């Protein structure tokens, strides 16, 4: 009975570490790598939002799917936007952080509008989100 208890304890510790590694990292001082990761993740959200908007405009999605999925994307973008607004970074990275914070707000706003957008707005939002994704590249 005693032999497996050590690996079990080690496993529990590793689980806790993994959960911490997965859950932490919001806000605080951002390194260049962290900024780049934030940018990558925002680009993904913008790009997926653009794809959703384009398909919604073309009548290839249901209204419910567009609303629910854009809401999910919006929540993630909004969370990123909030943590970027509260974040600090070293002086030379400040312009990048400001640009990223602005784009996060823009992407988050566009995704929020997408859920209830008309066909014309969907086309416009697809274009806007594509543009934001390209800027974030």
């Amino acid at each position, binding site marked *: *009975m*005693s*032999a*497996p*208890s050590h*690996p*079990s304890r080690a*496993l529990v510790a*590793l*689980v806790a*570490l*993994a*959960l911490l*590694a*997965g859950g932490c990292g919001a806000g605080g001082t951002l390194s260049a790598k962290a900024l780049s*990761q934030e940018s*990558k*993740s925002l*680009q*993904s959200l913008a*790009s*997926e939002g*653009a*794809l*959703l908007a384009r*398909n919604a405009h073309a*009548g*290839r*999605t*249901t209204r*419910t*799917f567009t*609303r*629910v*999925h854009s809401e*999910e*994307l919006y929540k*993630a973008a909004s969370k990123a936007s909030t943590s970027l607004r509260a974040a600090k970074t070293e002086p030379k990275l400040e312009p990048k952080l400001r640009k990223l914070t602005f784009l996060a707000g823009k992407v988050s706003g566009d995704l929020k509008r997408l859920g209830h957008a008309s066909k014309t707005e969907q086309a416009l939002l697809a274009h806007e989100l594509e543009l934001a*994704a390209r800027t974030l*590249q």
Partner: protein
Amino acid sequence: MSVKNVLAVALGILSAIGGFVDIGDLVFNTQAGATFGYQLLWVVVVGVVGIIVYSEMCGRVAAVAKRPVFDLVRERVGFGAGLGTLIASQIVNLMTCAAEVGGVAICLQLLAGLPYRALIPLAVVALVLSAWVLPFEWIERVFGYLGLGLLVFAVAAIKLHPDWVRVAHGFVPGHHVGGSLLVYLYFVVGLLGAAMTPYEVYFYSSGAVEDGWGLKELGLNKVTSMIGYGLGGFLSFALMIVAGTLFLPRNIDPQFLGTPPLAAADALGEVGLLLALVGILFAVGGAAIETCFSGAYNTAQFFGWRWGKREQPAAASRFTLAWLVIFALAFLVVMTGYDPVKLTEYSVIFSVVALPLTYLPILLVANDRSYMGSNVNGRLANVLGVVYFVVILAIAVAAIPLMLLTNGGQG
């Protein structure tokens, strides 16, 4: 073989295809495709052959020795290590079951638009009722057949016009392009873990014992495991090809369960989207029931309780209580609001750690003449079994360090 038998085999294969993909396959195949394109298709082949090798073995052990996997685990590795394996497998089963329940609720939300939290209890009640009311074979059939909606991803893969030469190259292991080596290795481990997830063999072997398999089912065992899992792997290819064609060029990192259906919508419109959502709903729902039963099977077999879906609930009361408790705990986990996709990533990676203790007893017993008589492993089954066991050991050691070093594949 009579027409009736051919039909039975065909139906079994169809339900195996629909039942092959679970939330782990959905998450890892689309993420791998979106990160490395078609370069990891070879890993799916390795994983599918692995699950075929070990499923065939445990189906044969169940048919000949009438022993399910966890019965053998305790006997072969002893009470202490067996208990460790039971605890580890129960944690993984619970995480997987919770992720699948969350997946069902998300699918329902994407279909009906109702609030996610309100849909979680609805999903759990629907799953518990299905598990309680439907006979064993109907659970497999209903969820397996409706899970065939996932075939829409194969059509989408063709409609999206991937570069087939590059797709073909993806079946040959080689140097990876793009992304870091550690992330590449993380996905190798994740894809193998998703394909060879332990609950599948627990469920398969216990199901074979419940169905009263004997020597005459050995052929059925071979056909079902080879063709069913083989064609099920085809769905994994489709998911990876779709993600590599549509998401990779757009730098989309699929972090939501709604992302893969978006690819079906892009290729096939509203009908494609609805088929994908229904396919995911039933594939994931079926997997939730399978993980829950697996947990109950394992516990009952380890402690020597009376067990079986075919038993009256009162006659196998501890077994029945066990699967009800697992559903209740999964419900509580999902209600905490933890993201089912993240939970899936953790459950797949932790399941890899539990793989060796699941597969070793199967390999040992399948080679033991005192259990198997003349139906022991042949040379091919042994070579493949040993090679895969080495692979399993290697990925079990690497899984958690890779997850920590790559921040769950984020680099």
